[in-house]
């Protein structure tokens, strides 16, 4: 199920923000080069707020203990845990579209 979350302009460039979608929270990231990524909102390690992390080219560092994740695969580079990731895109109107088929 693909859902519309809102305009990408609500997220500053290079940062992330969280959205409440039903029972789940989803973190959405806006890359400086136009990429959009969506993941679960909390870090699987110690529940850090991932939207507050440092965003790179397709990677993210959690603000609490600096675990680094690949935003496409969800795999942690430094540990053996992984994030749930969701396919995300912008529609023609600049709205964030996230495919939550795999969401809880």
């Amino acid at each position, binding site marked *: 199920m693909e859902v519309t979350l809102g305009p990408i302009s609500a*997220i*500053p460039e290079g940062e992330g923000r*969280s959205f409440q979608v039903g029972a789940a929270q989803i973190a959405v990231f806006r890359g400086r080069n136009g990429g959009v990524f969506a993941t679960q909102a909390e870090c699987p390690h110690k529940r850090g707020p991932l939207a507050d992390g440092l965003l790179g080219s397709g990677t993210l560092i959690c603000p*609490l203990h600096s675990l680094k994740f690949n935003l496409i695969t969800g795999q942690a580079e430094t540990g053996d845990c992984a994030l749930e990731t969701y396919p995300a895109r912008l529609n023609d109107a600049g709205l964030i579209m996230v495919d939550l088929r795999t969401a809880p």
Partner: protein
Amino acid sequence: MAKQKLVVIGNGMAGARAVEEILARGGADQFEITMFGEEPYGNYNRILLSDVLNGSHEAEDIFLNPLAWYEEHGIKLHAGVKVSKILRHAQQVEAEGGLVEHYDRLIIATGSVPFIPVMDGLTLPDGSDKPGVFVFRNLEDCRKITAYAMGKKRGVVIGGGLLGLEAARGLQNFSLDVHVIQRGNAIMGQQLDGPAAAILKKTLEGLGIVVHTNKDTRAIRGHDHVTGLEFKDGTRLGCDLVVIAAGIKANTGLALRAGVAVERGIVVDNHLCTDDPRIFAVGECVQHRGQVYGLVAPLWEQAKVLAARLTGTDTEAAYHGSKVATKLKVMGVEVASMGITEASEEGDEVVQFTEAKKGTYKKLIIRNGRLVGGILLGDIRKAPYLSQAYEQNTPVPEERLSLLFDIGAPSEEASIDSMPSEMQVCNCNGVTKGAILGCVKGGKRSSKAVMESTRAGMGCGACKVLVSQVIDWACGGATDEDPSAHFYVPGVPLTKPELIEAIMALGLKSVSSVFDALAGGTEDPGSKPGLASLLITLWADEYVDERDARFINDRVHANIQKDGTFTVIPQMPGGVTSAADLRRIADVADKYHVPLLKLTGGQRIDLVGVKREDLPNVWRDLGMPSGFAYGKRYRTCKSCIGTEYCRFGLGDSMGLARKVEARFQGLDAPGKLKLATAGCPRNCSEALVKDVGAVAVEGGKWEIYVGGAAGAHVRKGDLLCVVDSHEAVLKLSGRFLQYYRENARYLERTYAFVPRVGIDKIRAVVVEDSERIAERLDQAMQRSVDAYFDPWQEATTPATVNQFAELLPIVQ
């Protein structure tokens, strides 16, 4: 293109290592490789020969590359074939038996041969080997000694150097009565001075080895086999077996006969090239800048450079000689040695400790604040640190005692060898020695790779040195160097000076522009805060602030907690507050249901557990500026009562703290800055363990200490200078801070920076203006001071959209 023919003469540690390095750089595609080895097998670890002799290793245990390895890599190996001639004009190598190989490039790695002192009776009258006389250089020698030693009574080793003692240890294995003959008055003269040699001699004698010093052998006695030795002083010693281990000399015969330049070794330039551009040489047979090496570490370095040049993978690669610190075990006695063994220049400083009864001896020679020589015997726990200081020529701490001992350090800092596997090395992330070893065995061989994979050293960072030592130990001393270790941040391949130069030349004022211009547009998230910090230092008010480059704390000007809430700490200069301010803080705490109020270590009040969306309102209601209790920047300046009320006060510490805060508030830096002012030397505000501390002393003067710490690392600051006014304290500490901002690595606190650069150098630059940059540093600091703004003003003028929103509403 057809492959070039590469011929390697010598299949020992140097020759084989050079080939391994060439293969690692894709050399198999460029070269058809042929190797000649005199010994009839693949190559082995010559360092372990004495273990074979003493029976602790089987010969097959010490092989590095079996014959199959050569086949696998398409290398033609002529094992057991001795090269007899190099024909330079024909570019050919001729071996015994008429075998000829053509070469485009030739590597000579013939190593060294035993040095045999002149003496009578060395051979039988017909010139053949005298039964019972041996050298100790290769596996065949080990076999011969083993075969002969059985049932004999007394074995003598001629030569009391490292090799001789190793041989003596081996002979003990055959239940022989073992004697060592030393020509001079001290054993291991290369590594030890007189007193150390005397202590070691005593230790060895306790182990049953008789050491004779000042004995010059005149003849080996016995008509058809060895029966004893005769010395120049006329005395004699009966024995059944003699091992000559009096040293080695470079094996240069082939090169010499071919007309290649040879002095003590084959002369090579910084590219390991001889005076024939087609011929290279590597290892113990080489003389580089007048130096011939007989140890393994320089050989590894040479092999890397040679391979990089030959394969063209790094045309800049150059060998600049090796400074080698050695660590060895002589019959169970641990010895570490580096550089010179005796003070040799006026002004050389000697730090020494002797405990002969325990067999412990430590001696260091310091020249101009740097280590130029050292001997550790018996207790070598400080060896890793000292070796590094010696090899990298870094300044050593003023506190010389700390060079010899870890005073007050936990006793479990014993040698890594004896550390139990389950011992926790990184206490933040709970990583054990065993886990690190496992990671290395799994194929990670650089410090960075192991730390990232195990998370060791990635918490508070206090254990990083120990973690590196354990990794080095697990890699057997051959840790891969991670090139990014020298970069300012891992994501931009430049050192700090190079990066600063590029940033200024290209006028890069934002983090994203640095990634675009210098990292091919790839943004490494971990590199962003370090770049932001540097750009702020360089551009001050011209810096283009991109908030996504900052850690969350610097985006919302508060410190994130484990539950995603934040702490709010208003400015409170010198820890001085008022009843009105306290009332306001209390009211805010009530209004926003702040769960915890806490006094901080920096003499301020912390409102803990504030929700992100409440931050702007909390700041507005407080009506106080940010205390910057987050981020890598100036944090706080503690103070004591000083002259205001204290009956001991000598200087106005509270007034000075207020001025310090007003000047440096919000200042970004490579690491946190915690300052203090103390009104008298009692130091109630702990100014001696701060990044910068000012201590009032009698006579209206202030001492300025820098590089102190009392957190994960404890260090007393170094005295920078003594000045006579508040204004001078501000000026000198500001100049020091600017020098630190421009020269420290990212996240390098002053407690690491000051000893790394050396307080003498810092004092010369900052106080005496030796580099004539004081005025520029002062101006740069003034520019940063002028660029101060209170970020809590963003309560009314947010910097980004939804700056303080935790959860965004869905808008369809």
